[in-house]
């Protein structure tokens, strides 16, 4: 099947990390949680694996000793937009920084056979799409990514994964969660979509129970 031109496609280089249970401490160590910002974590993603020396908040990757064996330090994977991994990705302590670090690095999609629950939901709040696939499909993808060019594209409209325009798999994700990714909505935006109804409710309430609103 060919990809239709008007479909919403996210594509790019796939970095594979062949491990189960990658926890949030692995994704970003606690050292960097001291930042009070919500962005700028790209250099600390997978810090323990990515660098050979110890880092500190504020030291950029160019001033660090990079581990040449780690996939995100190799071209073309240093520009990866898709991360492929195994079971239970994002388990461990709940910290939104884990998603921020992936997002800031440029990862738009994480494909795994399962996710830590809080991490999974945090993804949608930050424009990162987590895709769950069966274990055998993940195995197959690992094979495909090592055999050929490590490139995939994902159609958000049809919820399908393509390699070189060939359809590989379709995946499942809740509609309203997917909507957040497509339109870049957060919880407040989602609520504001019902602004009319909220206003109408408030007006009725003001009429029916005016004493709630009086200041006396």
């Amino acid at each position: 099947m060919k990809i239709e031109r008007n479909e919403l496609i996210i594509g790019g280089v796939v970095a594979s990390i062949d491990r189960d249970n990658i926890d949030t401490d692995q994704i970003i160590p606690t050292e960097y949680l001291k930042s009070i910002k919500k962005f700028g974590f790209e250099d600390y993603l997978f810090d323990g694996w990515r660098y050979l020396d110890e880092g500190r908040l504020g030291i950029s990757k160019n001033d660090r000793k990079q581990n040449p064996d780690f996939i995100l330090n190799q071209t073309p994977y240093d520009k990866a937009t898709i991360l492929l991994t195994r079971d239970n990705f994002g388990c461990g302590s709940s910290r939104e920084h884990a998603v921020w670090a992936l997002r800031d690095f440029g990862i738009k999609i994480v494909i795994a056979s399962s996710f830590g629950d809080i991490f999974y939901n945090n993804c949608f709040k930050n424009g990162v799409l987590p895709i769950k696939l069966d274990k055998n499909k993940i195995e197959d993808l690992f094979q495909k990514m090592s055999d050929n060019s490590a490139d995939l594209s994902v159609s958000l409209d049809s919820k399908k994964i393509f390699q070189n325009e060939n359809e590989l798999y379709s995946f499942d994700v809740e509609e309203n969660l997917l909507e957040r990714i497509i339109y870049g909505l957060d919880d407040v935006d989602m609520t504001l979509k019902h602004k009319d109804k909220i206003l109408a409710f408030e007006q009725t309430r003001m009429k029916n129970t005016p004493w709630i609103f009086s200041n006396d």
Partner: protein
Amino acid sequence: MTDLSPHDIVSQLDRHIIGQADAKRAVAIALRNRWRRMRLPEDLAKEVTPKNILMIGPTGVGKTEIARRLARLAEAPFIKIEATKFTEVGYVGRDVESIIRDLVGVAIKDERERRMLDVRHQAEDRAEERILDILLPPPRQDQPIQSDDSGARQVFRKKLREGELDDKEIEIDVSLIKPQVTWGTSPEMVVDFDQEIPNLDCVDVENKRNFELAKKYMGIEENQKVTDLKFDRVFIGSCTNSRIEDLRGAAKIVDGKKVSEDIIEAIVVPGSGLVKEQAESEGLHVIFKEAGFVWRDPGCSMCLGMNPDQLKPYERCASTSNRNFEGRQGNLGRTHLMSPLMAALTAVNGRVVDPS
């Protein structure tokens, strides 16, 4: 499998695989012949050379699928591996030994599942009986002892199965469980303190890689126990395991003793401000300090190593926190989770020892 004729085998394969009639017939006969050989008396069986099945063909014609279905019919273990090729420089790809090890691993796992399925009902029944034993009110003194299948028991059984007793609490005696200590990089990688850390050969294929990575990270060799390891630091703290009763228990153990010279630093971080206050009013801090512990203000401290309370690379820590992920307590640091009592003992002895 036992009484499937080649014809039956082919028709079973036909249910899943289209085409390849010749191949199906050939493998069916080969499988049948293997089975027939197995039925021969041992001395006669030796005279018959078993034939292996070799399927050759381009990708996508169904070789793997036939093998997979055949394995299922024969209830034999199955693994798919990328071929080992013979070239001028020798064999490349995965070595035969590791392939066979994996195959044995799969066979053991399959057999275990089969056996578990066999006894599953029995286990469920027995668990139900034990629960009923506990839940049933004891017979009144003036009543004759009721037989095992009394009316009351039946009523309770029905209630139990329908979930009406789900709110009832029962007590289980866990005094026989030995102190648990983690050896790996995930809380479930845990053993009795004196038990051997699982050998890679005994691990399910699925878990093997995780175990291998964890062992490497933790610097653990085959056939080692947690008690064989030398510790560098001890952390008694965290919101989960530094309650007042934890500190009382730990203080009892270290009272009058000294932190081992092998331990670089042993710290106690009370679980909260109230715990600290209470502990100090009981004089626990004096006991800890005299033994050589550092007495600290409450906080997260080494549970996650966000402040300078961190392990240096390769340092081994007895920690009462609840996460032992790679790098959790500092880059390349090695965390062993254990109870406050075991951690206190480790501080005094420099290694994990028998508490009894």
